[in-house]
C-alpha cells in the first residue's frame, strides 16, 4: 500500500511537470487530460471516490474539450489572417 501511494505521488509530480513543460497548447491539452486521469487515480488512493469522480469527468474530459475548442477558433482566425496577408 505504501509503495502504491509513493508511486502515485511521484507519477502526479512527473505528470504535472510534463504539463508545464509541453509548450504547444494542442499537445498540452492531451497531456493535461492524462494528468487529470492520474489525479483521479490519486484521489482513489486517498479513499475519496466523490472527488475522484469529479476530477475524472472534469479534468480528463471537460477541460481538454474546452481547450481544444478555443484552439480551433484561434486556428480559424489565424488561417483567415494568413489568407489576407497573401
Amino acid at each position, binding site marked *: 500500500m505504501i509503495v502504491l501511494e509513493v508511486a502515485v505521488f511521484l507519477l502526479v509530480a512527473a505528470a504535472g511537470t510534463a504539463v508545464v513543460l509541453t509548450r504547444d497548447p494542442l499537445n498540452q491539452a492531451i497531456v493535461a487530460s492524462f494528468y487529470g486521469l492520474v489525479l483521479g487515480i490519486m484521489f482513489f488512493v486517498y479513499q475519496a471516490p466523490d472527488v475522484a469522480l469529479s476530477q475524472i469527468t472534469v479534468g480528463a474530459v*471537460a477541460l481538454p474539450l474546452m481547450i481544444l475548442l478555443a484552439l480551433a477558433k484561434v486556428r480559424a482566425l489565424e488561417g483567415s489572417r494568413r489568407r489576407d496577408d497573401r
Partner: protein
Amino acid sequence: MTPRLRRRVFLAAAVVAGAFLLWGLTGLPDYGVYNGPYGDVLNRVAVAERKATNVVASVTFDYRGVDTMGEEYILFAAVLGVAILLRAQRDETEQPPDEDAADRHAPATSNAVRVVGLALVGPVVLFGGYVVTHGHLTPGGGFQGGVVLATAALLVYLSGEYVTLRRVSPEVATDAAESVGAGAYVAIGLLGVAAGATFLANVLPLGRPGALLSAGTIPPINLVVGLEVAGGFMLLLSEFLEQTLVIRRPGEVT
C-alpha cells in the same frame, strides 16, 4: 523586462517562497495521521442525524449548504461571463453552420466515431441521472452527475452535426435549465425559512438511511445542482462550438 531576466527573478523568488512553504508545511501533522475532531464527529453522527449514507454529500449540501450555494453561483457567473464574451461582435456575422462546406479543413467524422457515439448517448444519460439521484447514498451528487450529463451532449455533437445538437438541446432549454437550477437552490433554502427554521435547514421528512427518498432536502438539492451544472456545461460547449462554426469574421475560414 526580458524573458531571461524574468525567469531568473522568478527562480530566485521561487526558492525563497518554496523554502517558506516547506517550512510551513512541516508544521502540519504527519501524512496519514488525522488529529482533527471534526471529521470523526461527522462520520459518527451524520448518518443518524441526516439519514444520508454519503457523509460527503451531507456535508456539501446540508451542513455547509451555504458554501455550496456560493460555489454554484461562481459557476453561474463564469458561464454568464463566457456567454457575454463570446456573443457575436459588431463586425461579425452569424452564418448557418455547414459542416460539409467546401472551405472547411476539418476531416469528415469517421463512421466508427459516429456509431460508438450514438450507442453511448443513452447509457451516459442514464448513468448521469443515476449519479445525480443517488448522490446521497453512494459517491456522486449533483456536480459530478451534471458534468456526466453534459458529456452526453458532447457525444450527440460527435455522432451528428452541430444542428443535431441544437435540435436535441435548444438554446432556450439549456438557458432555462441553468437558471431554474440556480434559482431553485435558493427556493429550497427559503423552504426552510417558510417552515420556521433557518435558511437551508433540512425540513423535509428524513426517511430511512439507504432508501432513495431519504435525507430530507438533499435529493432535491442534488437534482437542482445537477440541472444547473449540466445546463452550464452544455451552454459552455455550445458557445465555444458556435464561435467556430457559426460566427464568422469577414474572410474567415475554419
